[in-house]
């Protein structure tokens, strides 16, 4: 068990009001992340994985629960005290172009991050921009470019460089490669891996692509309609998926077959993800679950241990 985690999330919930209706984006989620590790959040659209990432960074405020960063309770920290802490917790976005000002050159964008926290002098900041660009594998002249002049892969490297400029401990990676081409995805994943090794970074890696999450993460939480349905170290989750939803997700991945005879059958479950405005009663997965029983339709399941560090929220376990 981690004794002194970098990030501790306890019973966090987040609700949004949209046109008078309540949407449960994240419900009662808890996890801990040890420094230097990668925590994967995986789920389909509407699972609340991006919201959860923003709650950890206090870009959104939780309705309930507690968030501890580096031993400090940041749940209700006022903005003034939160801002200096932001150096230590950064985020990279799925669409790096949308996250940058179209009017700022790349160099200015990275410098600005340091300027906000009054790191170094103008000269030292400029020098650091060059170093950072080299670190993420870009030639230094891209600092004169504007975001719209660069490709998605290059921009994602810039996003990483900007986050790194503050020497963070934690980086929330919100679908950082899902908008990129396959060959560029691997470049970026490779870079993230290298940086983690060299700088002892902690990642929260959010993605819908299970294979990528498995590849990068030490521990993984599977989210469905804002709830963690299963959480385990990566190997265990994939070796012994215990929640029916995790099983379905795994079956939905199309692997390249060894030969055409071993091709995957297009088995699938019925139905789609229900509206988060009125989630189903009992276990939210029951309308799509092949094993659903009466108890699943009426009673909310609680997380049960499959193993000491492997939990699943399903009535059928144990």
């Amino acid at each position, binding site marked *: 068990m981690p004794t002194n985690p970098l990030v501790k999330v306890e019973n966090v919930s987040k609700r949004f009001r949209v046109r008078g209706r309540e949407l449960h984006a994240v419900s009662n989620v808890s996890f801990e992340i040890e420094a230097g590790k990668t925590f994967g959040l995986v789920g389909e659209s509407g699972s609340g994985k991006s919201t959860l990432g*923003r709650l950890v*960074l206090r*870009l959104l405020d939780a309705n309930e629960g507690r968030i501890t960063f580096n031993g400090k309770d940041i749940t209700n920290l006022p903005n003034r005290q939160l*801002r*200096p*802490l*932001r*150096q230590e917790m*950064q*985020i990279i*976005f799925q*669409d790096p172009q*949308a*996250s*940058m*000002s*179209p*009017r*700022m*050159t790349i160099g200015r964008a990275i410098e*600005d*991050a340091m300027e*906000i*926290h009054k790191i170094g002098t103008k000269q030292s900041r400029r020098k650091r921009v060059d170093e950072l660009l080299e670190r993420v*594998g*870009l*030639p230094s*002249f*891209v600092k*004169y*470019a*504007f975001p*719209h*002049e*660069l*490709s*998605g892969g*290059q921009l994602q490297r810039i996003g990483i460089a*900007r986050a790194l400029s*503050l020497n963070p401990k934690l980086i929330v990676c919100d679908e950082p490669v899902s908008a990129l081409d396959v060959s560029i995805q691997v470049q970026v994943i490779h870079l993230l891996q290298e940086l983690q090794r060299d700088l002892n970074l902690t990642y929260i890696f959010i993605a819908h692509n299970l294979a990528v999450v498995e590849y990068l993460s030490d521990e993984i939480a599977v989210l469905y309609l804002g709830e963690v349905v299963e959480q385990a170290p990566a190997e265990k989750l994939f070796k012994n998926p215990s929640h029916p939803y995790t099983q379905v997700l795994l079956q939905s991945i199309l692997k390249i077959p060894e030969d055409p005879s071993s091709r995957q059958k297009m088995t699938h479950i019925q139905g789609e993800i229900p509206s988060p405005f009125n989630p189903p009663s009992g276990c939210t997965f029951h309308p799509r679950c092949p094993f659903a029983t009466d108890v699943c339709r009426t009673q909310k399941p609680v997380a049960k241990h499959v193993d000491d560090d492997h939990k699943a929220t399903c009535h059928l376990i144990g």
Partner: protein
Amino acid sequence: MAIAVSQTRPVAVKKNRSQFYQSWKRFRKNYFAVGGLVWVAIFFIIGIIGPWIAPYSYTDADFLAMHAPPSAHHIFGTDQVGYDQFTQILYSVRYALEIALGATCVSFIIGIVLGLWAGLAGGIADMLIMRGVDFMFALPSFFFALILSVLLGKGLFPMILAIGVPGWAGYARLIRSLVLSMRNGEMVEAARALGASQTHIAARYMFPNVVGSMVVSLAFGIPADLTAQAGLSIVGMGLNPPMPSFGNMLANASSNILGFPWLLYFPASIFAITLLAFLFVADGLQEAFNPRGGM
């Protein structure tokens, strides 16, 4: 396009790439806009130095030369009272600019305050302000200007208010939509994640991205206000004679059109060219700041 810079084939990137330099480069290519800008500049210079280059005072009536056609003494001729038309036009330019700029500022300031309020506060304030905008758009703003000028009386300052106050709605709507589109956007979220303060976000991230749209809407606002003030003068709610204005001159010319065409030609053509020049500049700015059509 995402292809300007490739890792294998570096492309030299120029260093002077500030927003305004880039916009100016695009503006320069638009000959209509540049021509318009030249005319507008001349118009401004005349507005400033007009009283010093005017051959007469605008209250000097040459009783010996009433209805005089253009001549060496009166290059644009005189009207029925004997006012020198050239002098009248020089002063008209000055007053037209004072009123148009003043009115645009008034509209813009009210618009910014209400637009920011609506966009940032949301809720009931937003609802009320936007219904106000709808109300203003439901009736022609000239109608409001007319009512206000009746209430406020004549003169330079009342005219600025009469034209300026009803013009806020367009600016308010623009600024509100800019604020809303950015406040919830990823750019601002990213800046917050970097730890930027509200003022830093507003100054470094939001302002540079709205300044173009605001300059363009101001550039369109000035010719609209020029027209409004001429309109007010024509219906008799403008500046009191003998204070000259394009509207007064045009109104006067239309009743003296037979026999004294110079009374119409000079002010009408100068006024029309000026309006066009402002619109060319505004169009040019629009393209220069928003090359891809959008915000």
